[in-house]
């Protein structure tokens, strides 16, 4: 991620000689200074389908518009709904797989996997355009077992970093 690289190289010009900084310097170089992480939990109101809550976390109030957050979460929910949609196409895929004793899954990419790639591209795009400029980072929910949407808040390193 571009954001991580920028922060990883930031301490090159940030030569703080104090002992306090030395303890954390390796951590700073490995990861940007993380203030906190916010977790958007799953919404199980409609059953076990993948859907995330649209409640705006209070920690993001200073950084992000509620509307932008809503739009991101709603789009993610719509994409997951598309992946898990029950319809002619998914049934056809299922029946075909059954007839071939499910060996077709070894060679073919499923519809769900295709949509997951789409979701991953969307998240990357959102990070580049909206979240990274505000010091935030969206983590793809698939990396967290589809349990949460993790938003990492990076603290403002404008003091002493020369950025």
């Amino acid at each position: 991620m571009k954001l991580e690289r920028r922060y990883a190289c930031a301490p090159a010009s940030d030569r703080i000689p104090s002992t306090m900084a030395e303890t954390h310097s390796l951590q700073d170089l490995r990861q940007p200074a993380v203030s906190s992480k916010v977790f958007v939990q799953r919404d199980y109101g409609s059953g076990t389908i993948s859907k995330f809550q649209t409640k705006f976390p209070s920690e993001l109030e200073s950084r992000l518009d509620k509307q932008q957050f809503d739009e991101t979460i709603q789009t993610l929910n719509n994409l997951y709904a598309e992946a898990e949609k029950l319809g002619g196409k998914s049934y056809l895929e299922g029946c075909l797989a059954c007839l071939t004793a499910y060996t077709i899954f070894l060679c073919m990419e499923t519809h769900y996997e295709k949509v997951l790639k789409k979701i991953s591209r969307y998240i990357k795009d959102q990070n580049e355009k909206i979240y990274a400029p505000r010091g935030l980072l969206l983590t793809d929910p698939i990396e967290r077992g589809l349990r949460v949407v993790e938003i990492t808040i990076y603290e403002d390193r404008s003091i002493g970093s020369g950025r």
Partner: protein
Amino acid sequence: MKNCEYQQIDPRALSVSPMSAQNRAEMKAQRSRRKWEVFPGKNRFFCDGRIIVARQSGVLPLTLGLIVVTCGLFFAFDCPFLVEHLTVFIPVIGGVLFLFAVISLLRTSFTDPGILPRATPEEAADIEKQIDTSGSSTYRPPPRTKEILINQQVVKLKYCFTCKMFRPPRTSHCSLCDNCVERFDHHCPWVGNCVGKRNYRFFYSFIISLSFLTSFIFGCVVTHITLRSQEGKSLIQLVICFFSIWSILGLSGFHTYLVASNLTTNEDIKGSWSSKRCTEESGNPYSYNNIITNCCVTLCGPMPPSLIDRRGFVPLVEASPAASATEIELSCDVVRLPPPPPPPPPPPQVEWPTCSTSICFFISNLLPLCMKTNGSAQVF
């Protein structure tokens, strides 16, 4: 970029590792580790993480062996006679059913059943914070449950102390595999794996194809014996085979009922949605109230992905020992969990009473195949 990172470090300031070159070598060695190598559950992995089985898969070879031996004897002793007297399609149908059953069995055994990865320390801390702020001030934490509404019905979500998260609906923790499994049905020792969201359809096709296979072999053997006119012996064999096939057909019938009602074995045993427990007019909130829709959703729905990413690489930061000291410093501030209460009771393994009678099928099906009716040398 990496050169830039290491040049900035003052080696004297680091108490953990003195040499940056050594760090780099260690990190390079650790970088190549895949996630299955550090998987916390009690599973075993083969083919570099492509195949996942439970720790105790001891009965799977027995299941496979019994199917292969039974079918082998069928092809060797019954098929020649029946091809001569009836039709050449008998071994063809037998072969197709046998392949279907074996492939389904292997898919059930070697597929991730829908294991949920454990919560990261930050997630666990966030959940702890939410539980603490919800008002518990007593020394002993209250039972960790969360009530939610699913389709206007109250469902309780339980907190899993091993995986450090609130279990999603229909998820249960398997104590044998030490994992939370989505849409947990049961842990089947015959298959050597849990049966859950991702491999239920494979399990169902295995038991259905096995039912057809056993019924087919039973029918062929009966025909064989009848054509050879050995009624005395055939009556005993018929009775034995009938009772052994009953267990497989019974299991298939039970799972067909579960599929049609969109229930899991776990829910059925606990009576989660039975009319006795539900006082109001409520039932299974996950059911579509249509048998065909329920069947299609369970068996032909979209195939969900594996969430544990077995073949992914462990991220460098987490694997590096040099960073671990500072991470432990930071993480100690974040994660303060109270001592966990005793682990939850293990989920019921209902397949034992049902499946154990199926061993009678296999053994007793070998009898008619092996006994020569005209008094010639017997196999056993």
